[in-house]
């Protein structure tokens, strides 16, 4: 496949995320990046994936990133309805994959979405561990992404372990749920360094090791020899990503402030029409 003549960082990240997925797995998403990575993977790299259209349901229907987590795609009888019990049974039986976007990840791959600072007196209270503890104690592969690689996000030690990484977090868990990969705007990292610490797998085109060390809160392990460059997206990768996200919901995750607000309003207004066009209200069989 010819490489895309030009691509943006979100497209590099989504393509790289997509290429990590494989096998016949339920794939759930609570972000546009996760949703698009799953969709792209199913189209090009892992055709057996059972991609969900909402965080917990709508199996095997083309997901479209929406601001409301695809909560409408289970209306029409495309997509197989699942229950929360199905989701956690799939996690416990290792038939589930998800790309997690933590607020903090540390050198051992411990992750934090709960609080900045001490849990009991947080500087910033975040959202709570949600389902990350289940993922990090049961899945044979756990995937993380961070869009803005910085010393505050990728640091020596997380303030609170919402998810279990390597090292002493493994006590009583063995390898179940150990961290597999971290994708950031700088590169792809694994946890194969000394003692299961973070190591460089590949750097995105144009990124240097110095930049990585500068923007990381600890010394990232770099193996011997040449550092690989991340395979860039192909034209087909880019085409599928752009077709799958006509509203550009993915761009929101990269923005903040007034720019994001404007984009948000714009997407929200167009979302209804787009959803309606993509998923006409044929209604549910037997529905009065």
């Amino acid at each position, binding site marked *: 496949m010819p490489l895309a003549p030009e691509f943006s960082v979100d497209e590099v990240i989504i393509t790289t995320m997509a290429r990590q997925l494989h096998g016949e797995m339920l794939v759930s998403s609570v972000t546009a990046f996760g949703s698009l990575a799953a969709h792209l993977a199913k189209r090009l790299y892992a055709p057996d994936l059972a991609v969900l259209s*909402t*965080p*917990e*349901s709508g199996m095997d229907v083309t997901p479209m990133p929406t*601001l*409301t*987590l695809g*909560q*409408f795609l*289970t*209306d029409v009888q495309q997509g197989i*309805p699942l229950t*929360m*019990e199905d989701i*956690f049974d799939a*996690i416990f039986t290792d038939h589930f994959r998800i790309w997690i976007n933590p607020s903090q990840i540390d050198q051992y791959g411990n992750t934090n979405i*709960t*609080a900045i600072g001490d*849990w*009991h*007196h*947080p*500087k*910033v*209270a975040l*959202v*709570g*561990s*949600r*389902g*990350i*503890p*289940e993922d*990090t*104690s*049961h899945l044979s592969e756990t995937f993380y992404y961070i869009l803005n690689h910085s010393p505050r996000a990728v640091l020596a030690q997380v303030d*609170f*372990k*919402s998810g*279990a990484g390597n090292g002493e*977090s*493994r*006590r*009583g*868990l063995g390898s*179940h*749920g150990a961290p597999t990969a971290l994708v950031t705007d700088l590169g792809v990292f694994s946890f194969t360094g000394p003692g299961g610490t973070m190591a460089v797998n590949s750097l995105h085109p144009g990124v240097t090791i110095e930049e990585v060390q500068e923007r990381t809160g600890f010394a990232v392990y770099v193996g011997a020899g040449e550092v690989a460059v991340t395979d860039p997206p192909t034209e087909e990768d880019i085409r599928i990503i752009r077709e799958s996200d006509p509203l550009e919901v993915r761009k929101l995750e990269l923005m903040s402030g007034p720019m994001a607000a404007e984009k*948000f*309003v714009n997407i*929200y207004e167009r*979302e*209804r029409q787009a*959803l*309606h066009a993509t*998923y006409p*209200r044929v209604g*549910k069989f*037997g*529905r*009065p």
Partner: protein
Amino acid sequence: MDKRMTIDEVVDRIPNGAKVAIGGSSISRKPMALVRALARSDKRDLTVIVDVGGPDVDLLLGTGSVSQVIYAFVGFEVLGLAPHFRRARQNGTVDFQEWTEYTVMAGLDATIKRVPFIPTHATLGTDVPKVNTAFREITDPFNQEPLIAVPALAPDVALIHVNYADIQGNGVILGDGHVDVLCAKAAKNTYMSCERLLSSDELQRFGRDVQVLRVYSKGVVEVPWGAHPTGCAPDYRTDLRHLQEYLKAASSDAGWQQYEADFVDVNHRQYLDNHGGAEELVSRLKV
């Protein structure tokens, strides 16, 4: 048995200090009309139990109705953090107990199955058991491995919102089920609001979409738009514009007082009127 009641009759049946489990998930199918009525009532010292919380938990914190929150997550998803939740966590004015998505489900299931706990590996290796004093680490009697014993979560009341119900208390959920059925089965008293009441014969046509069984329902209220501003698939999407206003209002005392006056301390009809009425909502939120 005809279990129809009004929103206020539901609130009257919730005592101060009750443990209230709330269905739905973050910005999806929260029983907001019931939650607003509870928030504007004089009920206090509530313990709120949610798996994935959003505007429901945040509003009850904003009105000072809550003394404890048991949760796996509280947030507004794409819109960001929950303002009153964040403030209360940081000020330590309310007792918070952090659980996780499966352990909340397991805690409710333990009550349903009348067992004191359910064992799991979930949360091992994380800091959750360090801050959640309800959890206990036990040793598996078969293999001597560490396990977390998730204790039973026993709600006094469950509040849920569904698409359709009959007057006997059977409920149809067409979108994602979230943990509503677990809440309904685990609670001593379950109250259900619905977009529309159907005859029992009509309801039976939905087959396995009939997810709430009448033996678990104590009361049913017909409340169109009863989940607003959260979404109720397939009837309407989440009102993110309203949630943006909510976040803006919650950022200042004056703003919040105005919000309460306009959208909390009013009955459901006035609430809809203050959004320009149902027609306006239809045009913005029906897909």
